[in-house]
């Protein structure tokens, strides 16, 4: 059996080990990788930056711990940006395991930037059935959320006086790991026509770029790369930028495996054809 044939039958656990080692290398010998900012991320940054002092940003954090690796850095970067510029933020989660995580991030960043719950930001909480919840919020936030996450009636929250529905917010940014993005596009932007941007996991990214072309989205944060770009724009390096060097090494190893496996595949196929012809 030749070396190339052996390559075709390599135990997949060796590949796992190689990827594991590739990710551990930057953890031991850390280095930085330059991050270039794409226009779809810059548009979200500009949007948040230009929100006026009495205008509101609506941030939907529709993800749970299984995708926090990619979406938490985005949420942190956007919230830091909004808190730095003293923007008011209405936060909601339509993911069932999201509330605890959202509360932890908002509470930590609010303490860091001296922002007050109910004055500078409000966390509405969680409701099931995203499509219905989005449409109910389009009529009045108080219908699906009579109280915020902490049990305070929305009418008694100072920040929400005169704020009824999506007509009273500058726009919506949805950070999501699932089809909630579709719900926001169809039932949110499609019905209420508010400016919408999304932050999504890498797996989803290629499926949503066409919504930029159609104008249904004004920006996209694609996976951890989008988070790194946003962190660069706000000049606050976080986990997004930290992950880029790891990604570089891991991607290099994966590309190496793809190349040698293709070489091995085509070479062994040619050998088999030659052997078949000689028979």
């Amino acid at each position: 059996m030749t070396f190339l044939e052996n390559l075709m039958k390599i135990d997949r656990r060796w590949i796992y080990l190689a990827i594991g080692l590739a990710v551990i290398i930057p953890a031991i010998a850390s280095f930085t990788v330059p991050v270039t900012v794409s226009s779809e991320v810059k548009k979200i940054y500009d949007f948040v930056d230009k929100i006026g002092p009495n205008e509101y940003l609506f941030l939907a954090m529709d993800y749970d711990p299984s995708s926090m690796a990619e979406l938490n850095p985005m949420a942190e970067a956007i919230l830091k940006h909004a808190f730095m510029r003293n923007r008011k933020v209405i936060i909601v989660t339509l993911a069932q395991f999201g509330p605890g995580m959202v509360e932890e991030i908002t509470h930590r960043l609010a303490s860091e930037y001296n922002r007050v719950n109910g004055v500078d930001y409000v966390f509405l909480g969680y409701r099931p059935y995203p499509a219905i919840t989005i449409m109910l919020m389009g009529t009045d936030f108080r219908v699906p959320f009579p109280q915020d996450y902490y049990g305070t009636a929305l009418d008694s929250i100072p920040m929400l006086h005169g704020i009824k529905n999506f007509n009273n917010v500058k726009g919506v940014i949805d950070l999501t790991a699932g089809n909630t993005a579709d719900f926001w596009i169809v039932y949110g932007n499609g019905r209420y026509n508010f400016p919408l941007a999304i932050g999504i996991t890498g797996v989803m990214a290629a499926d949503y770029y066409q919504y930029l072309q159609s104008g249904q989205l004004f920006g996209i944060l694609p996976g951890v790369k989008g988070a790194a770009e946003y962190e660069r724009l706000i000049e606050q390096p976080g986990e997004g930028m930290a992950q880029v060097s790891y990604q570089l090494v891991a991607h290099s190893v994966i590309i190496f495996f793809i190349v040698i496996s293709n070489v091995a595949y085509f070479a062994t196929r040619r050998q088999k054809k030659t052997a078949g012809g000689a028979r």
Partner: protein
Amino acid sequence: MIGQLILNGIAAFLTLCIFSFLYKDNPFYKFAERLVAGIATGYWTMLLYHTNFKPVVWDRLAAGRYEYVIPTLLGLMMWTRFSRNWSWVSRYSIAFYIGISSGITITLSLYASLFKQLEATVKYPITFDGAGLSSLLIIIGVLSALVYFFFSAAHKGTMGVISKLGIYIIMIGFGAGFGMTVMGRVALLVQRVIFLKGYVNSLAGLFGG
């Protein structure tokens, strides 16, 4: 400090338990997997009760808003699914739900996912600059990919060439999706490695390493 370190230690142990599956299935992995499933079920049940059932159903009924009896009854009827004799009752709730969903979804989905996308395909004029050539590329890409799935004519001659181009366009799409998927999956691993590195560093700091 010590409390957080212990909690992070448990998280680090469970992370390694899950990663151990990459070698082969084992009791540590099974333990961690079932722990996650159990905690998740308990957490969601209590979350739904405290943040949904109580404020949206119970408190409103208690406040005399009896119009909420109707959705409450429809919800209760769903539980008849567990009885072989009474499961037909749940069909009314399901019919109600599907009826509303269809009425809302069909028009909005057609508008947002089909008409807006069709419009965007031919939205920008074809000119001899970067934007115009992009527009031309989009039109060619969409049409050739659609031709690949058009099976009412043989894929020979001109049709064959266009469908061949279509499959290349589709493969480019899959390639972009694969690349982004790899980034996403690596991000999950990297986040755990960064967490484990932080935990090791905090342990080293505690013991003066």
